[in-house]
């Protein structure tokens, strides 16, 4: 009985099937992570259970998860736009930090001079603007000179991090808290309100949801979104169609950078209330958002769900980090592994694998 594996292109994919593959990919990812945990002498099943228990198993956990979901949703929604245009913005981490810095700066500069709602609006605008700026430069370099955006946005990450580190230790060092690398706190009137019993700064959360919806609309209902998608799928067709590569690229990256910047604003006004070390402010959200965007199938609305899911992993990860002594870098393990399995899952969505039994004697 002869048999062989036959691989053909899959013509259609059902929604349910797609979701099933997604689920399977994630589970395999967790299995792999579990193996890695074993190497550290950690019981994988226990660890994974603890992660989900920590993030979704208690009121506090859920609140924390939603809190962490805010910057993830904001950033990831922005990433779906540029990823659709095949612009690999790896610089979200730096854009968040720069946005945070810009928001802090304006708050400290004029926080006492103008009514708080106005200051908050200015903070958001500045954060968005500088985040956009941080993305536009690599975007311009790519559109004009063909420079690989992965490297350029990454370099901007490092530059942003060092810049902010310099600022908080040096010129912007706070005068109230001696010895800590913080700036002064922003005015208490600027602290964003929380949902009772939690740290969910609902103002930013609502902004995130609205913006995600807006981006969805832009991607699929406007000319601009259409042009982004054409550029992403086929450069040549885009050129033939008269689509302006430079302006479309700049605008879409500006949007992504702005979203990340706003996430930075949220972390300052809502959580930290002062600027500090870049790692604390952005906490790897810029990288995690990449996975969130991918998990959300590059659909801004779906990033709301995948954002919450991954926030759960981050929160749970924090929980076991402390209890099991795992380092902060563990979240990168999650990021990398799940992304790998997601890509592998994509393969099954594109191809159908069948086992052919019997048949004539064919050549192997």
């Amino acid at each position, binding site marked *: 009985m002869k048999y062989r594996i036959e691989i053909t292109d899959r013509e259609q994919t059902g929604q349910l099937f797609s979701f099933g593959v997604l689920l399977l990919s994630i589970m395999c990812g967790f299995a792999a992570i579990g193996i*890695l945990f074993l190497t550290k002498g950690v019981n994988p099943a226990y660890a994974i259970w603890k992660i989900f228990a920590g993030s979704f198993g208690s009121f506090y956990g859920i609140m924390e998860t939603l809190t962490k979901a805010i910057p993830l949703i904001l950033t990831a929604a922005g990433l779906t736009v540029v990823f659709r245009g095949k612009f690999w913005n790896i610089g979200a981490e730096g854009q968040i930090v720069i946005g945070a810095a810009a928001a802090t700066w304006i708050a400290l500069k004029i926080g006492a001079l103008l009514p708080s709602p106005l200051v908050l609006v200015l903070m958001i605008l500045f954060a968005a603007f500088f985040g956009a700026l941080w993305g536009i430069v690599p975007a311009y370099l790519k559109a004009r000179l063909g420079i690989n955006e992965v490297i*350029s946005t990454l370099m901007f990450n490092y*530059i942003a991090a060092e810049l902010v580190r310099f600022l908080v230790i040096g010129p912007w060092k706070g005068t109230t808290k001696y010895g800590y690398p913080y700036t002064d706190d922003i005015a208490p009137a600027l602290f964003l309100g929380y949902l009772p019993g939690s740290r969910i700064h609902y103002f930013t959360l609502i902004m995130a949801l609205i913006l995600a919806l807006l981006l969805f609309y832009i991607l699929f209902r406007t000319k601009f979104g259409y042009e982004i998608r054409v550029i992403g799928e086929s450069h040549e067709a885009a050129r033939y169609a008269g689509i302006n590569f430079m302006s479309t690229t700049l605008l879409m990256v500006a949007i992504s950078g702005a979203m990340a910047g706003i996430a930075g604003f949220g972390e300052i006004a809502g959580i930290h209330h002062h600027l500090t070390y870049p790692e604390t402010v952005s906490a790897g959200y810029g990288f995690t958002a990449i996975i969130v965007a991918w998990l959300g199938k590059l659909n801004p609305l779906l990033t709301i769900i995948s954002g919450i899911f991954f926030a759960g992993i981050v929160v749970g990860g924090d929980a076991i980090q402390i209890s099991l002594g795992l380092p902060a*870098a*563990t979240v990168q*393990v999650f990021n*990398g592994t799940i992304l*790998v399995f997601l*890509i592998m899952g994509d393969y099954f969505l594109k191809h159908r694998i069948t086992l052919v039994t019997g048949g004539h004697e064919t050549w192997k």
Partner: protein
Amino acid sequence: MEIAIVLAVLKRTLMAGTPLLLATLGGIITERSGVMNLGIEGMMSVGAVTGFIVTFVTGNPYLGMAAAFAAGVAISQVHAFVSITLEANQVVSGLALAMLGIGISGLWGKSYIGQPLPSKIGQIRIPLLADIPFFGELLFVQDIFFYLAIALAAFAWFMLYKTRAGIELRSVGENPKASEAQGVSVTFYRYIAVAIGGGMAGVAGSHLSLSYSKSWIEGIVAGRGWIAVALIIFAAWNPARAVIGAFLFGGIFVLQYLLQPLGISPNLLAMLPYLTTLVVLVILGIGKESRKKMHAPAMLGEIYRRGER
């Protein structure tokens, strides 16, 4: 006195450039076969931590080097499988592996932070040649990684341009369809090229943990993997130019420390390597826009399907 300082600076430059050279050479081989490897940062990280741990446990740094090579190869094969066999997007795959590698490095290295190694890779002095004034001390009293890097650069150049395997490898990256039609297995060459690239990145990482630094630091690779990706472009995919580029950047790393006494904040100085990378890329982009495209392997990053209609 002055000469001694210059000598020390130059020696340190060569040392700083060594991991960059190793990683870049590996990356050149991989990209010549048509596969983009953005995971170099992760592979270097995995190599660094594996090399460190093995050396710590066994006390033998050479075992550590070997282990680092193996680790780099192992993790690179995930990238190979995903991007070659599963035909996934090479950018995303490389990125995922970079994240994974960095994470694993942090995970495994946590308990070793701040701990020094029982025995490090020391400098090897080559008799006779080392006695040449100035240059002898500079070039021939270095650790084994340096000699390895230079040797590999020469070997890579020779292999690429003067052997049959080199022609076949380059053809696979330029025109996989034609290569396959002549009976050259694209899949075979790409897997091997990725493995070599990963292994060399692993060894490059182990240089950082076994020779360059005094103890284990979290984030020891500090973006060198990404700089290596830029260096591949700078080198125009040519091992000879990679040597120049790597040591140039090694110099930039050393420059940070040289400028500190001037009173500039160390953080601003720390930006230097990354800013320089950007500047270099911009200059390359402006300078020879169309010619640069002529140097890159034509099918770099493109998915190849065997027997495609």
